[in-house]
């Protein structure tokens, strides 16, 4: 290594400069760290380092009862905590063989799809901010606040919701939801239209996103991609359609698919999915209104949850992709082993491959468009 007195940096023989981005950096979403070797502005190789937010959720899970574990799932993907809650609850319900009453399933569907919209709004807003477009962020975040109001009316929490219980949900939809939804639906659509008008055909936006870190479908499957990142590559896979749970097989919704797997496709998939989620909520709400008012919200569940000996895996489509829980029970009131399969864990391990050959500023766009959530990544 030669020491360059002018630049005051160590130079390696290939004249590559090692740049350390993160773990606490304003452009990194959470505590992520990338060690990049650069030639000028071009990235030659990048290696992500994770574990800065590791809290040992799986180890804690082995020492908590089944109900005590639900709040921990909030702290995984905090942008859409409700989806993580429901994913875990459904895995335990499968392990115990509980059938959840239809009304509770509809409440879950509505809340989960609201969480999906909120998650995608954050993603698109932040992606805009990272690429220098600040205005769409405000349009979208106002709508997200309205969605969080609904969550707050439900049980008082806005971000970490601890939604639902094993065997159903603890409360019906809040009364204010019935007044709010018809107007909220329109404002969400309007905010999306405004964002669309600002970004989708914007020359600067297109220059920064089209063709940036494109990924082939074959590579994406090899790396274990799921969710919007996989669909952006052109693979039509969505667990809501392929392994339908709850009432998703009865809803009419499209699965948007991209072509090139670049930042622009990932953005478009999210924009279209928000529209589909609004449609799903409409249909679920119509079904919900047909239910009698005193329909049960909880299945018959013993007070102390002790699933019989056995193990099973259950996964659902969360905003980020396939979130699965593998649980082994030894017949006691605590899980013997819980394994979480976080969607962005699989996506982020391909990060080095994704950004190779791009500019440094494109890594930030890539990171935003993948929606890497450190809480979910490190557990």
């Amino acid at each position: 290594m030669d020491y360059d007195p002018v630049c005051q940096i160590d130079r390696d023989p290939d004249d590559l400069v090692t740049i350390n981005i993160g773990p606490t950096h304003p452009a990194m979403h959470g505590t992520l760290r990338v060690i990049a070797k650069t030639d000028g502005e071009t990235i030659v190789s990048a290696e992500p380092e994770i574990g800065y937010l590791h809290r040992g959720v799986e180890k804690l899970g082995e020492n908590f009862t089944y109900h005590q574990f639900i709040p921990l799932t909030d702290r995984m993907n905090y942008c859409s905590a409700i989806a993580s809650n429901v994913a875990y609850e459904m895995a335990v319900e499968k392990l115990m063989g509980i059938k959840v009453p239809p009304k509770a399933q509809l409440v879950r569907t509505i809340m989960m799809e609201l969480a999906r919209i909120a998650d995608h709004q954050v993603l698109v807003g932040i992606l805009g901010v990272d690429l220098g477009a600040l205005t769409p962020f405000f349009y979208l975040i106002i709508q997200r606040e309205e969605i969080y109001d609904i969550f707050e009316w439900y049980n008082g929490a806005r971000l970490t919701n601890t939604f639902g219980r094993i065997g159903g949900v603890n409360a019906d939809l809040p009364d204010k939801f019935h007044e709010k939804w018809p107007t909220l639906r329109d404002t969400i659509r309007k905010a999306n239209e405004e964002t669309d008008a600002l970004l989708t055909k914007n020359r600067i936006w297109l220059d920064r996103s089209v063709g940036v870190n494109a990924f082939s479908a074959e590579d994406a499957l090899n790396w274990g991609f799921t969710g919007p990142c996989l669909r952006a590559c052109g693979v039509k896979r969505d667990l809501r359609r392929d392994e339908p749970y709850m009432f998703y097989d009865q809803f009419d919704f499209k699965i948007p698919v991209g072509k090139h797997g670049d930042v622009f496709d990932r953005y478009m998939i999210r924009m279209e999915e928000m529209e589909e989620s609004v449609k799903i909520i409409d249909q679920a709400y119509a079904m919900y209104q047909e239910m009698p008012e005193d329909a049960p919200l909880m299945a018959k569940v013993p007070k102390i949850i002790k699933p019989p000996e056995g193990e099973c895996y259950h996964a659902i489509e969360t905003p980020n992709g396939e979130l699965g829980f593998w649980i082994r029970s030894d017949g006691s009131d605590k899980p013997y082993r819980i394994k979480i399969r976080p969607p962005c864990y699989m996506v982020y391990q391909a990060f080095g491959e994704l950004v190779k050959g791009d500019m440094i500023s494109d890594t930030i766009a890539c990171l935003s468009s993948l929606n890497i959530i450190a809480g979910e990544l490190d557990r």
Partner: protein
Amino acid sequence: MSLKERVQRCLGDDVIAITEYRGDLGIEVPKGNIVSVLTRLKEDETLGFDFLTDLFGVDNLDYYAKKKKKPKKKAAGEEELVEEEEDKGPPPPRFEVVYLLQALKTNERLQVKIRVPEDDMEVDTITTIWKAADWPEREAFDMFGFKFRGHHNLRRLLMWDEFEDHPLRKDYPLEGKGEERHLSYD
């Protein structure tokens, strides 16, 4: 043909045990054959398990300990008989590695398990089949201490590099052993 029959026909003698619980099919295969088993499952036309969902380790230390305790609750006469029977066989290997597979065309899922004894923690890497196994294998090494033979970068993933234990093992205390991370700047 059901999934169970197709898997049996594809793997033949390599299937040691089959479990089915809540609709999830699981098979146990010999540890040494894991790469060939997964390749066959991937390439077989009737199965096509072409997507690796996840890979992780399980420590069965307490699981067997609890099972052995159970007979003691029974009447005094039965107790001795049961315990004698259990002592005959060698103790089952302590660790397991579980592979979760998915077939994208048919939307079927399969769990493949191998048993890994404590004194021989070497397992063949499957990063040659799926790149997705990269971090999960590093995590399994980090958390349980499996040595994945042939993995290109088997470093700790979630814990720091100087950490010595394997925290998800059952004999590692929940509150830790008082390790501190000393940052060194060179």
